[in-house]
């Protein structure tokens, strides 16, 4: 089966502005492969390269070496993003637009027909429980409401691949539960979910496979159950072992 998301020796270097410092290597020869229909967790400590990987997949940053593909299309082509949905960690949407206008705008970018657009807007606003606030500008929304609006925009094109960056960050327990439910629902519909998170408990619950990144390198990749069995501990401890964390003895 062809991977829905694939990186081949992906490398990214940032040139430092300081004269004495050389290039900073953010990613070293990363090889990832996400199969259709799976929920894939992308883990790593801060500065591991998760955000850089996301930036390359979304076309914000060009790779220095190697390549990345979505649906077998190079990520540098805009069409590669036709069938994906992206939910950023922090909500970045036009504050002067209403949720309804925002969804309509993004639907137009996806060239979804008007009748279909209206139907999806109604459906999504109901799903994320923003029907009552659909005509209000986003600047009047609470953080949770903005996050839910973000989830709606990530689903507007009925994506086959969902990229989520810390999807439960800043949400209350109820909000987190709703996000988990949505991810599981998407999985049951055959969608693929690729998300980065620091909430290892959540990852352990919902992910089929995980990859752990550290200092730009892929340290381990595999099914959650296989890793737990291999390391004989829970996912958090697997994570700590893989990144080489040694607890200080008191």
């Amino acid at each position, binding site marked *: 089966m062809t991977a829905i998301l694939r990186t081949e020796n992906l490398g990214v270097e940032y040139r430092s502005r300081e004269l004495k410092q050389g290039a900073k290597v953010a990613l070293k020869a990363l090889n990832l492969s996400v199969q259709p229909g799976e929920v894939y967790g992308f883990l790593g400590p801060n500065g591991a390269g998760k*955000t*850089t990987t996301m*930036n390359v997949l*979304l*076309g*914000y*940053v060009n790779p220095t070496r190697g390549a990345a593909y979505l649906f077998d299309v190079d990520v540098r082509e*805009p*069409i*590669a*993003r*036709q069938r*994906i949905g*992206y939910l*950023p960690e*922090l909500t*970045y*949407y*036009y*504050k*002067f*637009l209403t949720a309804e*206008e925002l969804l309509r*705008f*993004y639907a*137009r*970018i*996806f*060239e979804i027909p008007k009748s279909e657009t209206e139907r999806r807007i109604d459906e999504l606003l109901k799903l994320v429980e923003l029907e009552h606030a659909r005509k209000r*500008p986003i600047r009047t929304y609470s953080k949770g409401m903005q996050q839910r609006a*973000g989830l709606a*925009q990530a689903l507007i094109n009925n994506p086959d691949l969902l*990229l989520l960056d810390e999807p439960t960050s800043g949400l209350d327990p109820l909000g987190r539960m709703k996000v988990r439910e949505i991810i599981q629902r998407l999985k049951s519909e055959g969608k693929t979910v690729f998300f980065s998170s620091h909430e290892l408990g959540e990852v352990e619950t919902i992910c089929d496979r995980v990859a752990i990144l550290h200092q730009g390198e892929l340290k381990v990749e595999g099914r959650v159950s296989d890793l737990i069995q291999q390391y004989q501990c829970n996912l958090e401890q697997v994570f700590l072992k893989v990144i080489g964390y040694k607890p200080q003895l008191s």
Partner: protein
Amino acid sequence: MNKIFAVAGVVIKELYRRKDFYVLFILTVLITLLMASINFFQDIHVIRFVKEGCLFLILLAALAIAVTTTARQMPSERENRTIFPLLAKPISRWQVLLGKFVGCWAASGIALAVFYLFFAVMAASREHTLPLGAYIQVLWLHWQMLGVVIALTLLGSVVLSFAANLTIVFIVSLGILLVAGHLHKVASGMTEPSASILTVLYFIIPHLEFFDMRDLIIHDWAGTDLPSWLDVFSATFYGLCYMAFFLLAAGLVFRRKALN
């Protein structure tokens, strides 16, 4: 094109949801009405003075709206990080840039039309004539001028901060309007290499005075000495060339810019 118009639609919505346009329009109306109400001598009705004041205010207000709206686009997208969910959609950076340009130009055009409608009503109420052809020409050319300025501002917005871009574009635009047409006269009185530099500058800068028909409207040349439609279309083509050049430059810079 649909994607470009989608981005343009958001820009237009932003303009009419901000206060800028309404404040400037009300100020223009109030100052014009104040000028019209001044009685210099009893029973002497003057209109050119009022027309000049109104057109000058329209020039400044339209420039302010166009430049601030445009200068704000890319820096705001970066600072508010709205560029990220936008570029995560199947839209290229060229399309985003063109969408911003079309949106800013259309928004400025709508604002300009409202200003000129007020001007036409005010002038017609005093002169009891409505030289429609002349007003259409002056509106069209003014809109082309704004297009050139907007394209220049967009180029600035992908390299400069909002404040720096705003300042530079205002100074350059007003400077061009005031002196660009006279640079060759100044150059003829200078020594080399200044004369050559000024001459080159004279030929390469966009001559915004081609789009400034205010004197013809103020001094009632509408009935006799209007530019031909061929001249208007030639000026339009001239403006479109500069718009294309600035947008191309902006696109080449923007497509290479890292967004993180």
